[in-house]
C-alpha cells in the first residue's frame, strides 16, 4: 500500500515514542484497539494544573498508519488545551495525513484514544470542580 509522504515521514522518524508512569495524577492514559486490523494505540498525556497538555507520548502496534498517527497525534496534542484536544475529529486526522479510505479506522482509533486519555486524566482529579474548569473555556 502506498502512503502519503506525511505518513511515511512520521513512520520513519516517529516523535514522542514512550510513556509516563500510569499512576501519576497528572497523567491520562488510554489503550485502544481495533479488532479488525489488530491495530493498538497507547496514548498518554501529561496535563498541567491549567489544563494544558504539556507532553504527549505514544506506543503503537500495527501497520504503518497507526504508528504514523501516534507520532502526528502526540505532536498535535502538545500544548493544546484539554477542551481543544477533546474536539478532535477523526476526519481532520485522516485529512491531515491523507489517510487512504481503507485505513480510516486508524483515525477513528486515534480520536477514541484522545477522548479516553482525557477522560482518564479527568477521573483522576480529586477536585471535580477544578477539572471541569479545565475543560471549559
Amino acid at each position, binding site marked *: *500500500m502506498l502512503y502519503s509522504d506525511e505518513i*511515511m515521514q512520521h*513512520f520513519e522518524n*516517529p516523535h514522542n*515514542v514512550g*510513556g509516563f508512569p500510569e499512576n501519576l495524577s497528572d497523567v491520562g492514559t488510554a*489503550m485502544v484497539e481495533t479488532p479488525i*486490523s*489488530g*491495530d*493498538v494505540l*497507547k496514548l498518554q498525556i501529561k496535563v498541567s494544573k491549567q489544563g494544558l497538555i504539556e507532553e504527549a507520548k505514544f*506506543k*503503537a*502496534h*500495527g*501497520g*504503518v498508519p497507526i*504508528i504514523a498517527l*501516534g507520532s502526528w497525534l502526540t505532536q498535535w496534542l502538545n500544548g493544546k488545551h484539554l477542551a481543544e484536544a477533546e474536539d478532535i475529529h477523526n476526519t481532520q486526522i485522516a485529512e491531515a495525513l491523507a489517510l487512504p479510505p*481503507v485505513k480510516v479506522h486508524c483515525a477513528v482509533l486515534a480520536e477514541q484514544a484522545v477522548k479516553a486519555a482525557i477522560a482518564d486524566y479527568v477521573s483522576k482529579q480529586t477536585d471535580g470542580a477544578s477539572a471541569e474548569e479545565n475543560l471549559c473555556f
Partner: protein
Amino acid sequence: MKHPIYLDYAATTPVDPRVAEAIYRHLTQDGIFGNPASQSHVFGRSAAQAVDKARAQVAALINAAPAEIVWTSGATEANNLAIKGVAGYYRKKGRHLVTSKIEHKAVLDPCRQLVQAGYDVTYLDPKPNGLLDVAELEGALRQDTVLVSIMHVNNEIGVIQDIASISQLTRRRGIPLHVDAAQSLGKVAIDVQSLDVDLMSFSAHKLYGPKGCGALYVRRKPQARLLAQIHGGEQERGMRAGTLPTHQIVGMGEACQWAGQEMAADNERIRRLRDRLWSGLQDISEVYLNGNLSQSVAGLLNVSFDFIEGEALLAALKDLAVSSGSACTSANPEPSHVLKAIGRNDRLARSAIRFSLGRFTTVEEIDYAIVQVHRAVNRLRELSPFWEKQQMIRNAHGIA
C-alpha cells in the same frame, strides 16, 4: 550490491541474461517471428522448430516425453486447465476433489468455482511442520473422487510434500493426481518416471524465464484425460488453443535447460546463504520459523517476529524486497491462509516475513539483510506496547 536488495525470488525471478538473449532472437523481423502453426513457409516452420526444441528442454528437466508438455500462459492457467479440465471430463463419474488448505490461490479458486458448480471439495489440514499426512489423504478419498491436487513445494513456507507416496496411493486407487509444481521446477529434482503423477503445472518466471509462460505436463502412459478450457484452434493437440508465443516458449525452454545444468550447484550455494540468514537472525528473541528446514527448498525462509505487525516490518525493511503473505495476496490485509493452516495464531501469522533467495543472491546481501532486520525489529519493538509489557513480565520473573 543493488539497492533495494532483492530477496523475493519466490514471487518472481529476473530473466537470466542468457535466456533474455534467446528470447530476443525470436521477436523481430531479423529473428524467428513466424507463427509456429504456419506450416507452409520457412517463417512458421523455423518458429515451430524453436518451439519443438523448447518442448524437449522442458520435458528433459522432468524426464518426460516432449509430447507430454502443453504450453500455457503460466502455472495459474495450467492449474485451471488441470483442475477444471479433469473435473469436467469425469463429471459423470463423480463430483469430489481432494486438495489441501495450503495450496496457492491458483488451485483454491478453481476448486471454489467447482463448488459453485455443485462439486464437493475436501481440504486437508497440514501438520504444524507444513507436511500433509498421507494416511489422512487416503482416508479422504471416496468412490466419487475424480481428482487429487497437491502442491509440490509451498510458495510461502517452502515445504516439500511427499508426492512420491501420494502418487503411489492415487495410482493404486485409480484417481488422477495433479501437482502444482510452480515452486519446485528447477529447484527440486522432478522425474515423472518415478513420481507417478498425471498432471503437473509449471511456471517459467519462477526459474529465471519470462512471465506469461508456463506448461502443463499431461501424462501419456496412462493417458491423463481432460477437457480443454480455451477453445479456438487446434494448437497443443486440442488441449489449449491460441497462437504459441515462440519467444516466451523459447525463454521457458532455455530457462529449463540452464536449471537442469545448474540446479545442484545453485541449490548448494543458496542453501548455505539461507542457513546463514537464519542463523544470523537467531539472536533476535521471539522469532519463529514457519515450516521446517529439513523438508524444504533451499532458498526459502519464512519467519514470524512476534510483537510486530507484518506491514510495518515490511515498510521498516524498505531496503529489502521481501514479502509478508504471498505475492498474489499482498493487497489483502488478511493473515496468510497457509500460516493459519499450520497453526499460527493471528498475531504470528501477521508478523511473518518470507525471504526467498535465488541465483543472483550474494553473501554481502545476506549480511546486509541481517543487519537491516535487526534494526527494523528493534525499532518496531521499541514502539510496541505489547513488547513493553512482555519485557516488564520478563524482568519481573528475572529473565534476562
